[in-house]
C-alpha cells in the first residue's frame, strides 16, 4: 500500500499548487483592481507604443501627482504653521492666566478661612445669645411684668408676675448648685426685693379693699391676695385685722338695728321693745348674737378660702373674736342696766341662766374672746346682784312680815311668801347648768334666816303651840324643797328638826291622855316594884280602876276626843297621825301592862276578866286601827313620860 501512497503524494502537491493559482481570483484582489482601474484612466489604447511608454507615462504621472501633492501640502503646512502660532500664543496667555490664577487662589484661601472662622464665631455668638435670652427669660422679669409689680393696679397678671418672681427665686437654688453662686445670690436678692415690693403693694391694696368691706362682696382678686399675703404673716394679720374692723362696725350696726328697729314693718318687734321683760330681752339679744356668729364665720372663710388651711383655724377664731368685740360694749351696757334694774330674783336668776347657757355656746364657738369675757363678767355680776337682792328681800321680809304666828298656828304669811319666792327661783335654777352650788346657796340664803326668824317668833308660844307652829313651818319648807334636786341634806336637817318637834308633841299628847284618863296614879303604882298584891294598894282597888275603865271606854269609842286642840292645826296629816299613833301606843302599852298585872293571880283580883273585859289586843286595835303586831312590846314613848 505504501508505494501507492508516495506517488500519490507527489501528484497531490503539484495539483495543490495549481489549484491555488486557479483559485486565485483577480476580482478578489482590490489592490490589483484599483490599479487596473487607475490604469484604465490614461491607458486608452492598447498599443505597443503605448505599452512601451506605459512605464514612463506611469512615472510621469506619478511625478505630477507628487508635485500636486507637494503644492497642496504647502498650503496645509502654512496653515498648520499659523495654527501653531495661535496655539503657542494661547499657551502663553494661559500660562499667564494660570500664574495669575494661582496667585489669586492663594489669596482667596485666606479669605475663605477668615469667613469660615467668622461664620463659626457668628454661630457661637448667636447660640450664646439664645442662652442669654433663655437665661433672662428664666431669671428676669419682663419690663411689663416689672411694671405690673409696681403700678397701682392689681390684676390677674399681677399674680402671674408675682408667681414668676417666686419661681425665679426658687430656680436660683438650682443655679447655685450648678456653681453660679454669685449670680444666683444677686438674682435672689433682686427677686426678694421685687417680691417685697409686690407683696407690699398687694398688702396696701388688700387693706384698702377690706376697709370698705360693707357687704360680703369679695372679689377673687382679694381672696387670692389673702392667699399670697399668708406668706407674710405680719401683713396677713394686718389685713385680716382691717377686715375685722370693718365687719365689727357692720355687726354693731346690725345689732343696734335689731335692737331698735326690728324686722320689716316692725315684725318681729325690735328687741328693745321687750326691755322690761328681762328674760326675753336678754334672751333675744344673746340669741341674736349666737346666730350672727355663723354668718361672720362664713364670711371670713370666704375671704380666706384660697389660703392654705393649715393653722388657719386659729386666725379665724381670732378674727371672730375681734369682729364680735364690737357688740361687747352695747351688750354689756344693756346687761348692766338689766341687772341693776331687775327687782325680781327669779327673773334675775333667769338672766344668769341665759348668760350661763350662752357662755357655754360662746366658749365653744369663739373661745377666749372678749365676748366670752363679757359673759363671764356679767354672769358673775349678775350672780352677785342676785344674791344680794335675794338677801335684801329675805331680810326685809323677815323684818316686816314675819310676825307672831297666827292663832291657827299656820306659817305666817311672810314665811309662805318667802317660800313662794324660793320656789320661783329654784324652778329657774333647776334648769340651769352647773346649778348645784347655786341651788345650795340659794336655799341657804332663804331657809337659814327663815328658820331663825320662825324660831324667834315661836319662842313666845307654849311648848305645844311652838312645836305645832314649827312643825307646820318645817313641813312647808320641806315640801317646797322636796321638788328640787340638791336639797337632800337640807331636807334631812329639816326632818331631824321635825322629828324633835314630833317627839315633843307626842309626849305632850301622851301626857294629856294619861291625865284625862286618870291614868297618872295607876301608872306610877305600876312602875313601883312593891311585893304587896296590887289589889290591896290604895288607888288600885277595883272601884278605883273602874273610873279609869269608864273613861277609857269612852276614849276607845272616840279616840279624837282627847286630842290636844293644837294637834288639829298640824298641816301635815302624817304628823298628826304619827303623834296620835305614838301617844295612843303609850296608852295601849300601859293597858297591856295593867292587864297582865291584874290577871296575875298574885295580885289577887277576884274577877279580872270582869274587871277588864277588853284584851290588850282589842284596845290596841281600837286605838291604832290595826292588829297589834305579835310579841311587839314596843313601849317607846313611855320613857319620856
Amino acid at each position, binding site marked *: 500500500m505504501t508505494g501507492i501512497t508516495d506517488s500519490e503524494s507527489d501528484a497531490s502537491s503539484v495539483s495543490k499548487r495549481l489549484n491555488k493559482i486557479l483559485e486565485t481570483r483577480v476580482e478578489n484582489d482590490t489592490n490589483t483592481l484599483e490599479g487596473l482601474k487607475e490604469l484604465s484612466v490614461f491607458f486608452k489604447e492598447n498599443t505597443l507604443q503605448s505599452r512601451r511608454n506605459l512605464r514612463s507615462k506611469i512615472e510621469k504621472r506619478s511625478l505630477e501627482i507628487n508635485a500636486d501633492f507637494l503644492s497642496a501640502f504647502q498650503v496645509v503646512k502654512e496653515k498648520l504653521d499659523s495654527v501653531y502660532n495661535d496655539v503657542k500664543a494661547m499657551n502663553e496667555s494661559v500660562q499667564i492666566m494660570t500664574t495669575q490664577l494661582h496667585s489669586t487662589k492663594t489669596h482667596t484661601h485666606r479669605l475663605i478661612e477668615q469667613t469660615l472662622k467668622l461664620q463659626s464665631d457668628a454661630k457661637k455668638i448667636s447660640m450664646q445669645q439664645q442662652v442669654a435670652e433663655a437665661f433672662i427669660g428664666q431669671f428676669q422679669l419682663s419690663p411689663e411684668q416689672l411694671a405690673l409689680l409696681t403700678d397701682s393696679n392689681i390684676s*390677674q397678671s399681677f*399674680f*402671674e408676675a408675682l*408667681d414668676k418672681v*417666686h419661681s425665679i427665686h426658687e430656680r436660683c437654688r438650682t443655679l447655685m448648685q450648678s456653681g453660679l453662686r454669685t449670680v444666683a445670690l444677686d438674682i435672689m436678692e433682686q427677686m426678694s426685693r421685687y417680691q417685697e415690693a409686690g407683696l407690699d403693694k398687694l398688702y396696701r391694696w388688700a387693706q384698702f379693699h377690706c376697709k370698705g368691706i360693707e*357687704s*360680703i*362682696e*369679695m*372679689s*377673687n382678686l382679694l*381672696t*387670692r391676695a389673702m*392667699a*399670697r399675703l*399668708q*406668706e407674710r404673716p405680719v401683713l396677713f394679720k394686718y389685713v385680716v385685722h382691717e377686715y375685722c374692723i370693718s365687719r365689727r362696725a357692720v355687726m354693731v350696726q*346690725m345689732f343696734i*338695728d*335689731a335692737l331698735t*328697729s*326690728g*324686722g*320689716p*314693718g316692725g*315684725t*318681729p318687734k325690735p*328687741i328693745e321693745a321687750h326691755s322690761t321683760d328681762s*328674760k*326675753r330681752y336678754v*334672751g*333675744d339679744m*344673746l*340669741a*341674736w348674737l*349666737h*346666730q350672727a356668729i*355663723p*354668718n361672720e364665720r*362664713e364670711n371670713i*372663710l*370666704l375671704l380666706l*378660702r*384660697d*389660703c*392654705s*388651711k393649715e393653722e388657719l383655724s386659729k386666725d379665724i377664731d381670732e378674727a371672730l373674736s375681734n369682729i364680735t368685740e364690737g357688740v361687747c360694749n352695747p351688750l354689756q351696757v344693756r346687761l348692766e342696766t338689766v341687772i341693776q334694774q331687775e327687782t325680781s330674783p327669779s327673773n334675775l336668776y*333667769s338672766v344668769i341662766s*341665759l348668760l350661763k*347657757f350662752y357662755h357655754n*355656746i360662746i366658749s365653744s364657738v369663739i373661745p377666749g374672746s372678749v365676748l366670752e369675757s363679757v359673759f363671764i363678767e356679767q354672769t358673775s355680776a349678775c350672780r352677785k346682784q342676785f344674791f344680794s337682792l335675794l338677801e335684801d328681800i329675805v331680810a326685809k321680809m323677815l323684818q316686816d312680815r314675819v310676825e307672831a304666828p297666827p292663832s291657827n298656828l299656820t306659817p305666817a304669811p311672810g314665811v309662805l311668801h318667802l317660800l313662794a319666792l324660793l320656789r320661783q327661783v329654784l324652778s329657774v335654777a333647776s*334648769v340651769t347648768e352647773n346649778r348645784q352650788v347655786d341651788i345650795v346657796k340659794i336655799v341657804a340664803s332663804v331657809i337659814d334666816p327663815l328658820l331663825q326668824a320662825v324660831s324667834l317668833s315661836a319662842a313666845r308660844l307654849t311648848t305645844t303651840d311652838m312645836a305645832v307652829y314649827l312643825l307646820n313651818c318645817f313641813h312647808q319648807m320641806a315640801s317646797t324643797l322636796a321638788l328640787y334636786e340638791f336639797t337632800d341634806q337640807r331636807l334631812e336637817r329639816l326632818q331631824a328638826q321635825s322629828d324633835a318637834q314630833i317627839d315633843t308633841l307626842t309626849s305632850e299628847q301622851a301626857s294629856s291622855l294619861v291625865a284625862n284618863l286618870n291614868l297618872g296614879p295607876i301608872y306610877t303604882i305600876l312602875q313601883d316594884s312593891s311585893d304587896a298584891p296590887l289589889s290591896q294598894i290604895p288607888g288600885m282597888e277595883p272601884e278605883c280602876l273602874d273610873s279609869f275603865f269608864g273613861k277609857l271606854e269612852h276614849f276607845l269609842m272616840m279616840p279624837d276626843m282627847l286630842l290636844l286642840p293644837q294637834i288639829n292645826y298640824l298641816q301635815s296629816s302624817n304628823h298628826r297621825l304619827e303623834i296620835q299613833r305614838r301617844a295612843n301606843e303609850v296608852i295601849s302599852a300601859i293597858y297591856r301592862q295593867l292587864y297582865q298585872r291584874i290577871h296575875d293571880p298574885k295580885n289577887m283580883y277576884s274577877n279580872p276578866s270582869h274587871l277588864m273585859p277588853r284584851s290588850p289586843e282589842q284596845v290596841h286595835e281600837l286605838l291604832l286601827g290595826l292588829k297589834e303586831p305579835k310579841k311587839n312590846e314596843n313601849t317607846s314613848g313611855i320613857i319620856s313620860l
Partner: protein
Amino acid sequence: MSAGPYNYEYIFKYIIIGDMGVGKSCLLHQFTDKKFMADCPHTIGVEFGTRIIDVAGQKVKLQIWDTAGQERFRAVTRSYYRGAAGALMVYDITRRSTYNHLSSWLTDTRTLTNPSTVIFLIGNKCDLDSADGSQRDVTYEEAKQFADENGLMFVEASAKTGDNVEEAFLETAKKIYQSIQDGRLDLNAAESGVQHKPPQLGSDFTPNKDPCSC
C-alpha cells in the same frame, strides 16, 4: 376645689319647732347627713346645721336652727324665731297631743317671725303608719285641713326612712326663693332671714391657676 363649698348665692335661715320628741333633730340629721339617729338625745337649747342646696339653678346655703321642744327651754328657743326665712313646724302623727299643740306653735311663729316667713307643717314618723298595726293618731286629712286653713304647706314625712324630708326642706326654700323673685321678701330689710352673696363670686375664679401652690 377648695372654693367649692363657698359657691352659693344665698343663705336662708330656717328654724325647726314642735313638741319634744316629735323628731326635729332626726329630721335635721336626715337632711344634712342622710342618716337616721335612732337614739337622738333631747336637744339642749338649740342646735345648728347647714347644707347647700339647689333652688332654680341657684346655690342656696340653708342655715338651720333646731330648737329644743322641752318646755323648760321655751324661753331660750323663742328668741331664735327672729329673722327666720323658713319655719318647719313638726308634730308626731302617732301622738295627738303634739298635733293639738300646733296652734300654740303657730301663734308663736306668727308673732315672732316676719310676715314673709314661710311656714311648713311636717307630720313626722309616717313610717309608723304601716299596713299592719298602724300607730297613727292623727289623720292626714285633718292635718291637711289645718294646714290649708292656716295657709301652711304640708307633708307627712319620716326622719327614719327619709320619706319627704328633702321635699319639706326644698319646697320651703323654693317658696322663699319665689318670695324674693316676687319682691315680697326684701333682702335689704334687717332680719329677712336671707343673705345674698353677689353672683360674681366664684364665677371668675380660674381653677387652673391654683394660687395655693405657695
